[in-house]
């Protein structure tokens, strides 16, 4: 009987998963490149992140060559509006993706994996998706050429 009780308790422990979650699986990394080749450094007055009713505005960004932004894990599209310093018009990029949810455990929370990034609309000179799945260890997902 004691063995049975211990086994029952042990079985409860077996179903306790490790709290290992991917922290940054909704973060997308943009890299800026020159059309002629090489890294481009750009300044932005702001970047808008728009999804559903929500709009986020970044602080001014000075001389950057990479930029990490977040996508909405509850929706399948997010729009980014890039306003470069000294430019009249802004550039718009609309991304689509599959947000796959996973319960890590009731204590550890929920993880959203963003996969299959694709471009719905964009008006940059050129753009390419290097890594369509967002991962914990961030690498360049989208390369933007100016």
């Amino acid at each position, binding site marked *: 009987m004691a063995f*049975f009780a211990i086994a029952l308790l042990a079985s409860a422990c077996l*179903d306790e998963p490790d709290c290992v979650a991917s922290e940054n699986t909704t973060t997308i990394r943009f890299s800026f490149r020159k059309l002629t080749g090489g890294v481009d450094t750009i300044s932005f007055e702001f970047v808008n992140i728009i999804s*559903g009713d*929500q709009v986020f505005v970044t602080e001014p960004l000075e001389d950057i060559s990479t930029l990490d932004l977040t996508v909405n894990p*509850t*929706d399948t599209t997010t729009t980014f509006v890039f306003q470069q310093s000294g430019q009249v018009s802004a550039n718009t990029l609309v991304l689509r993706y599959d947000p*796959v*949810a996973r319960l890590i*455990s009731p204590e550890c929370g929920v993880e959203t994996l963003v996969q299959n990034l694709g471009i719905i609309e964009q008006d940059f000179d050129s753009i390419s998706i290097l890594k369509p799945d967002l991962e914990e260890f961030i690498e360049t997902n989208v390369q933007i050429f100016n």
Partner: protein
Amino acid sequence: MSKFLTKYIFISFVFWAGFASAQDEPVETETLEKKKEKSGPVIDIDGIRAGIDIFGLGQTFLSQERDVLEFQGDVRLKSYFFAVSYGTASLDDSNVERGILYENSGSYFRAGIDYNFLNKDPDGSAFFFGIRYARGSVEDRLRFDFSGDPNWADTPGLDRQNDRLSTRWLEFTSGLKVKVYKLIWFGYNLRFNFALNIEESNTLLPFFVPGYGLAQEGSRWGFNYYVLFDIPFKKKADKPAGLKN
């Protein structure tokens, strides 16, 4: 994949069959048995047992979040058991404080072969090793609000569900079955589950697979403790005079 599984099960069965024949009686006895078999039925069933997993029932009674019901049956074919089990499980793993509501339910079926290393035991007790092929299905739903998220706290939140995803996996099993009173047996199964395959979902990855356990683990141990009722097909031979029970 299914071709691979079929091949895998077939090879395992052949392995066990070969191993069992190596453990059998000396050659002379084998010859006699073969002669008997020629005139007798091809499949010589000694009896069947059917029962319920009281370990699962224990979880059901002790836990408010989990319901497990599993039935097991086996057919004795000399040194082998053909074993099947069917079960249902449901899980409510919610954490309201964290804005998580998760429900999961499903059923599963296992079938396989065990080889009994105690085939000469007068009571028919068994210490066995075996293999199972398991199939099942899972339905689940996850609701989650992003109230703690620094960016998306004001979004409506997630509400994802899988209506019915098929699951399958393999198990190595080992255990004991012991007669405790007349036709009543107790037995346990220690199971090593592996090669889990879940039908792909583009919205929600299941947290729990009924019959298997946590879906994120590539292999895991399982345990069942059964009470079984024996339905003998053959009358036992009378004991020689002078022997007491």
